[in-house]
């Protein structure tokens, strides 16, 4: 299906575990982004990518790792999950044809116990 998808949609994990959140888009957008959304903080950018193999830190990158070997995929890994990483994570993509308007995935609700 066309669009941007995230998996899993819900995840419960324990402190110290590694967890990877997946993001896939079918528009061939060059830019992809990871945000976390927490009450009182709005949306905060974790990492972004301008193209395959090009990634850069956002506002809150600590504790997260990203990679982008293919244009359509942008996984986010929490190397050793902490309770403070309990949040809703949104992936987004954007491209030239839409004035770089960002399109958001459905989100992943992550709980770290």
């Amino acid at each position, binding site marked *: 299906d066309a669009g941007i998808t995230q998996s899993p949609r819900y995840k419960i994990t324990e402190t110290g575990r590694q967890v990877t959140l997946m993001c896939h888009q079918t528009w061939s957008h060059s830019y992809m982004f990871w945000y976390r959304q927490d009450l009182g903080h*709005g949306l905060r950018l974790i990492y972004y990518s301008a193209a395959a193999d090009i990634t850069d830190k956002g506002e809150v990158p600590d504790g997260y790792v990203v990679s982008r070997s293919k244009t359509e995929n942008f996984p986010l890994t929490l190397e050793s999950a902490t309770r403070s990483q309990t949040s809703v994570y949104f992936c987004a993509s954007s491209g030239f044809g839409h004035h770089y308007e960002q399109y*958001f995935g459905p989100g992943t609700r992550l709980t770290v116990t």
Partner: protein
Amino acid sequence: ELKVEQNPLFLSMQEGKNYTIYCNYSTTSDRLYWYRQDPGKSLESLFVLLSNGAVKQEGRLMASLDTKARLSTLHITAAVHDLSATYFCAVDVRGGSNYKLTFGKGTLLTVNP
């Protein structure tokens, strides 16, 4: 560092009334976006404003951009319950090549019968 401030953060209004949400930003930008988020859902793009004086309208919502004042407004006309949601503005840093957006904290709009 770009700062984006929305006000009010909480808005409770009666059906049929008009109101305006304000979005101020701290550095020059020619591109501003408005998004809507329903509870438990993802963000949906409403408007893309690309130049000074831009005005976009969709149904009961109208957005405008004044780049000289670094201000965008989202005007709600004759509110209805279906407009209840959180509204975010987001600003693209001018001159950047990475097309990152900085989001305001959002305005939670509740429309009461």
